[in-house]
């Protein structure tokens, strides 16, 4: 008997259930199909404008910095301002996300843009989030050419652009977005929920920012 069959038959023996049990199979299939939502915190149930404000407040509470701009055209200038204010070189790493590409970077003539995955040599990276979760000020980022996962973790400064209309009240609404975009049961290779900059409390339980991931997280919300 394979290890797989041994483990499964041990489970069935302990639970005293047969391996062909239509009732149990039906229960499991139904749950996977219906994906019940359970308890959603009341604080996430807000009208749209309230969700955006809550997202911004929560993101700042958990250590991110925040800028709200009127449209994508304002993003390059905001990125440049951020880099200058932190005395960072005018260089960023960015994926192939069309919304970012179309923002009109030629206005920032001194800004060097490197494309593709990060090789660890970038001080600053720019990503576009798929969604924001107001409940906890959390960013949701999907892997792929548009927004390589390495940009989320290797640069010291992570700048994330987020469309205000993609801010949802709760995590469950983001699962609905994912299913709509990719089909039920399908996920990007990596899906990162990010709440604030990297931190560690491992030395004397003192919270310090910038453990292995970005030391700073800057969110640009595009209204």
């Amino acid at each position, binding site marked *: 008997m394979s290890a797989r069959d041994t483990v499964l038959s041990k489970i069935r023996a302990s639970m005293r259930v047969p391996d062909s049990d239509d009732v149990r199979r039906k229960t499991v299939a139904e749950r996977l199909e219906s994906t019940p*939502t359970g308890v959603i915190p009341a604080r996430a149930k807000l009208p749209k404008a309230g969700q955006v404000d809550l997202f911004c407040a929560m993101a700042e509470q958990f250590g991110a910095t925040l800028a709200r701009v009127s449209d994508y055209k304002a993003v390059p200038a905001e990125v440049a301002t951020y880099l200058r204010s932190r005395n960072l070189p005018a260089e960023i790493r960015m994926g192939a996300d069309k919304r970012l590409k179309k923002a009109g970077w030629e206005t920032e003539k001194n800004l060097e843009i490197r494309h593709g995955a990060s090789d660890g040599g970038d001080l600053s990276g720019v990503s576009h989030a798929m969604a924001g979760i107001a409940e906890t000020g959390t960013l949701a980022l999907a892997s792929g050419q548009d927004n390589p996962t390495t940009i989320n973790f290797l640069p010291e400064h992570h700048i994330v652009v987020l469309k205000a209309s993609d801010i949802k009240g709760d995590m469950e609404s983001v699962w609905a977005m994912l299913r709509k975009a990719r089909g039920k049961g399908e996920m990007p290779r990596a*899906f990162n929920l990010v709440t604030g900059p990297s931190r560690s409390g491992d030395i004397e339980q003192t919270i310090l920012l910038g*453990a292995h991931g970005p030391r700073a997280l800057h969110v640009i919300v595009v209204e």
Partner: protein
Amino acid sequence: MELTANKFKANASKALVDAQLQKALGNVQKGFIGKRQKAADALPEFDELRDNARDIKNHVLAHLDLYLEEYERKVTAAGGHVHWAETAEDARRIVLDICQKANARTVTKGKSMITEEIALNDHLAANGIEPVETDLGEYIIQLRGEHPSHIIAPAVHLNKEQVEGDFRRVHTHLAKDRDLSEPVSLLSEAREVLRQRYFAADVGITGANFLIAETGTSVIVTNEGNGDLTQTLGKVHVVVASIEKIVPTLEDTSQILRVLARSATGQDMSVYTTFSTGPKREEDPDGPDEYHVVLLDNGRSAMLGTEYQDMLRCIRCGACMNHCPVYHAVGGHAYGSVYPGPMGAVLTPSLNGIDETGQLPNASTFCGRCESVCPMRIPLPKMMRHWREREFERNLTPAVARYGLKAWAFFAKRPKLYRLAASFGMPLLSLFGGTSRRFHSLPLAGGWTRHRDLPAPEGRTFLQAWAQREALKQEPLKQEAGQ
């Protein structure tokens, strides 16, 4: 690690007089209890979420075989490989095999208790593969040749001066006169040193907080980002996870996530919650070429259908040990097992047998704080009591305790005699209590009085005090009735 659970008493005695350890243990109470309470209070639905989290896991455990089949199907469909391991030895062999096929010389590791359980690092090292722990706390204790003393804060038993000493001893390529007096400089140094290791590693090994059946996804929850670098930069990503980590859907994951970080560190969400599904895809510019999941049983299937089944709901948040007065007093290493604290006192006998671990379910005052803060509502004291019963049934309880219990039972079964003995004993003890009203030492109770005083009884027995209290309660009623 070598199991020394049955040396708990000796280990604890040493821990109580270890000044460095006692100083560090102060951080457990300071760092966790208030933060958890604040986070729980800020979410009115917290207890309702705990109920739902418990129900989700109960549902999973009742259908575990079927969810595992579904999970495996989805992982395979996403291009990943699922390996089943009945025992720790099987899991070690499977992981080594994957590493050898990848010609791995070094592997980076995200923080994972399951790889501690299967003693993976020693096995890899013995076979010429260097394991590098990347979580700051895990990295520190790896330098010291120690094991985690806490399931989410592995180096909580150390002070910053000790860490500084270790970094100076090991990082000899750095300037001798560098300033490491502040925790932030220690963190920066570890960040620099480990950065290079991620890129050099051939395989990245992580655990999993959840395995999602609906999507074939493994989830890790971290704050540092080291787990993500580990699993993104290696050519091969190996997930080691035990079978009960399954949850049905993304929605179920959300429910449990809402209680996990709040119970663990008092955060609303940990910084990074990462969902991984299969290896790098055609269009992906980064990510691992191979994605493997090792599903470990190691005694868990045998817990199903028993009085210990509820333990399989555990999500390893550490709240039970953060709130345990025994853990606060002696720290995690005294337990002499991979999993310390109340959850370890229940789980370790299941994994290693009660013969080798009988002292652990006895390392509790039954104060009940662990159960009261457990996000999955696991009845930990009840299960420790079950283990004590098993131990007693099997004659494993020490002779003194057995005779003591027998003597007590003799009186307890004869209430009149019990009351008579107590009505003589209590005034006598009260008398010997003197003016300090405390005993600094007592015959037959040295285990208690060595580290703390025993308050002297006030002279009356419990039943006498109770009778008087009831009489007082009746008094106003009588007066009212008379008026």
